[in-house]
């Protein structure tokens, strides 16, 4: 009974915190972006990703670092208390939430893996392009059944280029387009998308869409180092759009309207590119290290009293 209560209370705290934080993020992410005003597309993408995973990360940290230890250390094992209706119901909700996340992520991953296996069938490793890129990200030349230019794979992403793309793009256009895809691979954007699938909460689509747009622009920035590159990438975007599968209007979705708007915005951004908009390579996050260190010290120093307070909260929940 002690173990069941421990699990029930931990899951209940997790789900309460997760729902509260997710609701706050889904309503407040635009305001947060306006207040912080990221300097570059990359910073904006990082901020939006951090906001998107904040509910999952913070709820997990609180559950494993505070709720669970407080219950194990401060709850008397001898008592034969029942789990209680509230922790039981909330615990079940939490299990449903986690199961939904696992199923969604597993389905997405399985679909993507199957597609990758299909696309890689008969593909050729483009060694010269890999050498030229200076990165370890493998680049494969695929048949025309695969998407024109894409990154697939989670922990070991691969760049896939179709025959049609190689034939259509001139060498500078292909080079910048590959750099764009390599930027996605180096930032593990596919893995981030899988985390989104796992972290279930309604009304996050807007935030995910904004993240997706900023990620594309961040990859554009990473691929471009001068105005020539910017025009080459813009040309590649237009050519690849023409090569891509044209959806018939009967299969039209809002996503297509969004993608047209996003494509237009990206091309306009590239043709007005200037060196000032190239993000600085210095690690600005290093400035946050002292604050993070101070926070860790603060938590360690007040950990005992925090556990006591957390135990009081869980006691209230059980009653």
């Amino acid at each position, binding site marked *: 009974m002690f173990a069941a209560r421990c699990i029930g209370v931990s899951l209940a705290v997790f789900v309460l915190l997760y729902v509260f934080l997710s609701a706050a993020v889904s309503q407040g992410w635009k305001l947060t972006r306006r207040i912080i005003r990221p300097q570059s597309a990359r910073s904006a993408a990082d901020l939006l990703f951090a906001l998107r995973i904040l509910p999952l990360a913070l709820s997990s940290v609180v559950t494993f670092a505070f709720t669970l230890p407080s219950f194990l250390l401060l709850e008397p094992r001898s008592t034969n208390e029942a789990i209680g209706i509230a922790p039981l119901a909330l615990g079940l909700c939490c299990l449903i939430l986690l199961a939904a996340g696992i199923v969604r992520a597993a389905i997405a991953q399985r679909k993507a893996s199957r597609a990758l296996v299909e696309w890689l069938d008969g593909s050729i490793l483009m060694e010269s392009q890999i050498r030229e890129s200076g990165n370890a990200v493998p680049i494969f030349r695929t048949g025309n059944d695969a998407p024109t230019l894409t990154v697939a794979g989670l922990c070991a992403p691969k760049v896939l280029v179709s025959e049609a793309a190689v034939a259509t793009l001139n060498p500078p256009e292909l080079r910048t387009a590959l750099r764009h895809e390599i930027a996605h691979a180096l930032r593990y954007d*596919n893995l981030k998308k899988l985390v989104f699938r796992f972290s279930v909460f309604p009304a996050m689509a807007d935030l995910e869409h904004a993240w*997706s747009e900023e990620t594309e622009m961040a990859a554009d920035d990473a691929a471009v180092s001068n105005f020539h590159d910017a025009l080459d990438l813009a040309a590649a*975007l237009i050519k690849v*759009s023409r090569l891509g599968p044209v959806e018939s*209007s009967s299969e039209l*979705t809002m996503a*297509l309207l969004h993608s047209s708007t996003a494509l237009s915005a990206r091309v306009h951004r590239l043709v007005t590119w200037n060196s000032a908009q190239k993000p600085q390579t210095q690690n600005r996050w290093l400035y946050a290290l002292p604050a993070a260190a101070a926070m860790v010290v603060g938590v360690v120093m007040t950990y005992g009293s925090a556990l006591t307070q957390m135990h009081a909260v869980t006691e209230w929940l059980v009653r």
Partner: protein
Amino acid sequence: MKRILNLLRRSPNIQLGPLEQQLLSTLWMRGSSTVREILDAGDIKLAYTTVMTTLDRLYKKQLLKRAPDGRAFRYSPRYTQEELEKAAIGETIRQLLGSSAAASLPLSYLVEAVSEHDAHLLDDLQRLLDRKRAELRGKEKH
């Protein structure tokens, strides 16, 4: 008609104001119209420039097509009512499930698929790019 307009209104990426909804409905009924024709029909009693600006906004939201007609533009709906209804329902379901199309599969594309309606958008972008390339060549010659 009301149902689709309500759905569209709830869709955060293509939000429509009351006049935009009214003009879209009018164009679905009429097929295509110029600003003058809409005003002459008498259902909308607003200034010419107000209607013109609103139609332009709908065009920029990619809900209308337009073609020159004399000194004005002739506007027509880019999508049928049924197509937009499907799109709006899809978007609403995606919103409820809490995931955007962009994040539906862990894959990154250089560009997402484009619709058959975007061909002229690509032509516009190509013209813009050619102009910029010509400007750059001109600067480099000087």
